[in-house]
């Protein structure tokens, strides 16, 4: 088997090294749905419009899709923000590396992030 001995590091452990400028953010109380606060970790589908996050790890099972996401620049440490949301709530247009990419929420669930702004 070619895949023998494939090494996948445990990268999701480095949450909390706040690299963003979280500052004195007001707690968003009126919002009932779960919202990630600055410095918290989660997955990309939980990120809200206006927030920015840093990618911690890609957990996509599908090899071809994972490769594509890497090729498109969704790599460790890259900063992502939510740009546009389709009228029906899915897919989402995200901004990274000075360009925009549309991606479905189900695929975003497998991208671990840390909110930095």
């Amino acid at each position, binding site marked *: 088997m070619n895949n023998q001995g494939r090494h996948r590091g445990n*990268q999701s452990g480095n949450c909390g090294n706040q690299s963003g400028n979280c500052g004195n953010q007001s707690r968003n109380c009126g919002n009932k749905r779960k919202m990630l606060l600055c410095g918290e970790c989660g997955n990309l589908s939980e990120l809200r419009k206006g927030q920015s996050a840093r990618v911690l790890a890609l957990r996509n099972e599908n090899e071809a899709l994972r490769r594509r996401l890497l090729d498109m620049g969704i790599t460790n440490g890259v900063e992502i923000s939510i740009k546009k949301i*389709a009228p029906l709530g899915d897919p989402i247009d995200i901004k990274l590396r000075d360009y925009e990419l549309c991606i479905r929420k189900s695929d975003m669930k497998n991208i671990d992030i840390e909110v930095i702004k």
Partner: protein
Amino acid sequence: MIYEKKKIALVGNQNSGKTTLFNLLTGMNQKIGNWPGVTIERKSGKLKGTDIEIVDLPGIYSLSPYSSEEDVSRKFVLDEKPELIVNIIDATSIERSLYLTTQLLELDVNVVIALNMADIMEKKGVIIDIEKLSEKLGVNVVKISALKKDGIENLIESIKQNIGKSREKHNIFDEDIEQQIQNVEKLVKISNKRFVAIKMLERDKEIAKSLSEPVFDAIAAVEIYFNTDAEEGFANGRYAYIEKLKKQTVKIVAMKQTVTDKLDKIFLNKWAALPIFAGIMFLIYYLSVGVVGSLTVDGVGELIDMFSEWFGATLGVWGASEWAVSLVVDGIVGGVGAVLGFVPQLIILFLFLALLETTGYMSRIAFLLDRIFKKFGLSGKSLIPFIVGSGCSVPGIMASRTIENQSERQMTVVLTPFVPCGAKLPIIALFAGYFFPATSGLVSASIYFFAIAIILLVAILLKKFIFKGESASFISELPDYKIPSPRYVFRDVAEKTGAFIAKAGTIILFCSVVIWALGSFDWSFEYGVPIEQSMLASIGNAFAWLFYPMLGEWSWGATVSAIQGLVAKEQVVSSMEVIAGLSEGAGGDIFAEGIFSFFTGASAYAFMVFNLFSAPCFAAIGAMKREFGSTKKTLLTVGFQTGLAFILAYIVFGIGHLFEVIL
């Protein structure tokens, strides 16, 4: 000539302007559009004034292909060994574009970078230090704007200077990784050593079919260094290099809110987006079939009638025999004229489609309807074949290649012919115009929405019973909105209209003559028999029972006409005109009296539905076979489509007839 038999490949991300540049460099007119994936096959041309061959390739984001059309590009670059790669980079998204560049630079071939969209880049407030970028990458970088035709001369000069030259390769990864790459390179026996070595370390399925022990050792070493699998490690490494490079060469002065963002506030608005989309699609059909149709068809029809009468009389004066006059008037002028009468409507339809393709709205449609289509087992990307298919099914079916997932792609191929194409428009316009004169626009639009409903319904069934499996992903870019080039839109419309007219002058003409002959002779080859005794009638009578439940009438004429839709859908209209002409002897209105006077609103709508969903024309069947790569699958699909068409037409007639009886 020194440039003889040299080959250049145009390589770049999707929608980066490769084909626009290709057209400029070769003077050709290949199709362009403002959505990712317009080019699905390689196209070849000669650099103006030289013998250098330029090959335009489908857009790729990396040398690891994701969909079938992307594989074309990788194969070309690796197997056909061009003497030079012109790497087109979209200056407005330089970071992502350079990712592919880092891979191309690993190949043995020389590279020239064409930094495209330089004009937009400056407007967006991005400043790139071209000389520094060129120095760092070790290749020539030329600033161009393919759209504004700026910098093309410089690029041609650079191509001529760099073609076939060797180039030094840079190391872009960390020292330890480079060491491992070199170790593996020593084991590579073929060309493009550095590229192959990295692919082996990444365990690429295509290249690294069998790996030896030393390679596994190297893989283990890099994965420990990367602290992740090699694939991700190398991707991270490339982007890390690009980020560093960007810091040194790119300055972003200001990122203002662009026109695109402002327009998207409207076109992708939470509440307005779907109504706007439905409105646009409705308007296209309403305007082309309804408004323009009622304005022009009568006039054009009269013109053709006048010509037909005058021509018949002239032939008579010249002493032509009765059958010769009938061949020309009833057969040729009748059959071809019936189709040509719809040219004005098609021009409007083609114009709207060209605008959808060039403005950038097309990708938005995919984006905003993806959620719905996902529910039905399709992807938003299926929308693009459907919309292209409303012009002609053949390019529509081919456009399905941009869909990565195999079941979604095959479903799209099965469903694309259900979209009313330009050739079906004459059928719709003819029936809707005559039987629903006050509401022809609405009725034509209703056919379109009926088609969408059936497409979604069939998609569910296909997903449930045939194309099982998980739903795939949707990864796409939203291109910036662009004002379409009037010259290009004009050329596109003229080309499609020209093709339609050419078809009328060849295939339709030929078929009309055949129909005329079959309708004028009986089996003992006697001319001038009543049409009911002709060969055509007996052929039609053999199949008429199939059509009885949708027409409410035993009609061999409608039957043979519908069957001829296989040749070309507009032939249905031609055939009806020829048959009507022969049976009345004087052309005139198809439905007014005689053989087709039995049609009512219900049977007219049912007949439209049948022609919409039944087996597409031979050209489209051929396209389907190319995409499936299987005759059996193609025949099954055609059988399924035709069966469905019969059932739907029966149901429509049943319900419609019920209303007619009650009212």
